[in-house]
């Protein structure tokens, strides 16, 4: 095993649908500045390597990590880009962890940066280019483009997530009201987070249910926005972390798991994920990360969770699949306030992806917020003391899951 890794800081840029006041490098710089001001003893010279990630296809500008080198302070330093679709941010954070834990000579402190300025390009074109291979194969086998268009007519990720929502809703026997309740909790939490995008302090369940359907069962009021934004995280060794901040956050488990794609199978074949809400990949990643961290009872041992969920049904589903609640009980937890800021197990106090979604950054904002909650420096800080927290990510056609488990004490040594 590699050495123990700690997170000492995390920073955000302001998120909005159009950050027309800054260019992409300036946006990234905002997040780095916020990250480094929280650790005054760290200078740019102290950072040994960089990990960087976004989805270039969404903005239409290639190799951004090369031309924004100077804006990150990465000149003449090791720099690596990771791009894995929706889980990009989660993979970047895990990349930062790996770089430190690998004990490479001279590399102790690593800055991980994830960002997306979606207003620059056309996200739907970017997403279409991802699915283009599958779609053209199905077309060559005789399915018309018209039918394929209808199949994914919700557009982008909603096209696949809506199928998942129907499955989850019929399994756990919930109504749209239960979905709206999740949205209300998220958007109200977002109103208290300085960097969040959709801040709706007075949102009610009725307001959400009053919006039209995009694709049943998802309504306009329930889906995530498209944001511009960036996030930065500082990873370092256990020894150096103690000098940098009062409460270092130790990374005790990471996992990145890929399962089979749902809805669209490989090369025109059927998909064996018959039930897109079964999420065997998510359960596998939870198993991996929790066993690394020595967590046997996630429901009891985890104090705070940031779950990557652009749509409310996914938040409920992944709460269960990541072991926070028993199967089909998550909606009840939202109703009784267990997941609220002052509840027993607060979930997504930053407002989550449902309120702020800068695609490349989103999956890293989850572990970033979860780490800040342990440090006590989060924007919408929970009143109780957080010892252990998790941050998850989702991507692909409902099949990629990343997970990071963090704690205020280093990994227990198992012999």
């Amino acid at each position, binding site marked *: 095993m590699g050495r123990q890794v700690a997170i000492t800081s995390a920073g955000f840029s302001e998120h909005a649908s159009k950050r027309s006041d800054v260019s992409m490098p300036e946006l990234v710089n905002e997040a780095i500045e916020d990250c480094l001001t929280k650790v005054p003893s760290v200078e740019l010279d102290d950072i040994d390597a960089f990990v960087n990630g976004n989805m270039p296809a969404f903005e239409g500008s290639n190799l951004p990590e090369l031309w924004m080198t100077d804006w990150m302070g990465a000149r003449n330093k090791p720099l690596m880009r990771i791009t894995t679709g929706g889980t990009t941010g989660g993979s970047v954070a895990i990349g930062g962890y790996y770089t430190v834990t690998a004990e490479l000579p001279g590399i102790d402190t690593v800055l991980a940066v994830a960002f997306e300025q979606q207003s620059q390009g056309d996200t739907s074109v970017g997403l279409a280019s991802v699915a283009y291979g599958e779609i053209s*194969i199905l077309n060559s086998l005789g399915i018309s483009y018209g039918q394929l268009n209808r199949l994914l007519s919700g557009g982008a990720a909603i096209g696949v997530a809506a199928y998942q929502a129907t499955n989850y809703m*019929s399994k756990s026997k919930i109504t749209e009201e239960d979905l709206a309740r999740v949205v209300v909790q998220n958007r109200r939490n977002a109103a208290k987070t300085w960097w969040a995008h959709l801040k709706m302090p007075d949102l009610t369940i009725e307001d959400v249910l009053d919006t039209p359907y995009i694709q049943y069962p998802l309504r306009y009021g329930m889906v995530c926005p498209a944001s511009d934004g960036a996030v930065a995280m500082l990873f370092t060794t256990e020894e150096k972390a103690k000098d940098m901040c009062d409460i270092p956050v130790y990374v005790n488990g990471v996992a990145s798991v890929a399962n089979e794609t749902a809805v669209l199978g490989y090369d025109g074949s059927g998909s064996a994920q018959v039930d897109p809400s079964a999420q065997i990949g998510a359960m596998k990643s939870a198993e991996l990360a929790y066993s690394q961290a020595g967590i046997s009872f996630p429901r009891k041992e985890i104090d705070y969770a940031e779950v990557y969920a652009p749509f409310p049904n996914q938040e409920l589903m992944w709460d269960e699949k990541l072991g926070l609640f028993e199967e089909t009980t998550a909606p009840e937890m939202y109703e009784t306030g267990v997941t609220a800021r002052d509840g027993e197990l607060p979930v997504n106090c930053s407002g989550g992806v449902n309120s702020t979604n800068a695609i490349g950054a989103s999956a890293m904002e989850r572990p970033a917020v979860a780490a800040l909650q342990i440090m006590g420096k989060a924007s919408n800080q929970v009143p109780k003391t957080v010892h252990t927290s998790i941050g998850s990510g989702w991507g692909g056609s409902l099949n990629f899951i990343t997970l990071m488990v963090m704690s205020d004490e280093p990994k227990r040594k198992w012999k």
Partner: protein
Amino acid sequence: MSKQTQRKSMKYEKKEYKKTRTMEANWYLSSYNYKFNITHMQPFLKKMKQKKLIGNKCSGCNRVFYPPRLVCGECLVKPDRWVDIRETARVATYVIAYLKNEEGEVEERPLVLVQHDGCDTTSIAELAPGVDVKDTYIGLPVRAHWKDEPEGGLEDIEYYDLMEDDAEDLQ
């Protein structure tokens, strides 16, 4: 119906950002040469032309793929046996889409993925025109409706008919 087409946005706290210079440019993504293997599809498509359904079965995990798959991702072997798939299927999952028809009116239409009896995968499908969205549910039994003259392609199953409810008179 008008409520469904109306795009109503919810109020949120907005901040105005001043604009910097913007340059317009294009990024062309129009042409692809995507390579893929369809040798495993040939027997399947030949059978489709005779209005027959087959799938291939992995000898490692016994899963049956319809339409056939080149490699089983779980066992990393090529499914090597052909097996019969029934014409009957069940709706595995569905959504309701709000699409404009030729007259420009918004129509509610169920979009479904079906799982044929005898296979372990879902495939893209359309329900017969005129099926009421309210009748759609997960587990709804359906039957493939063939084209009059199949050509050996996935479009040979034009759509899926609802099956007769044998228990209807007992309700």
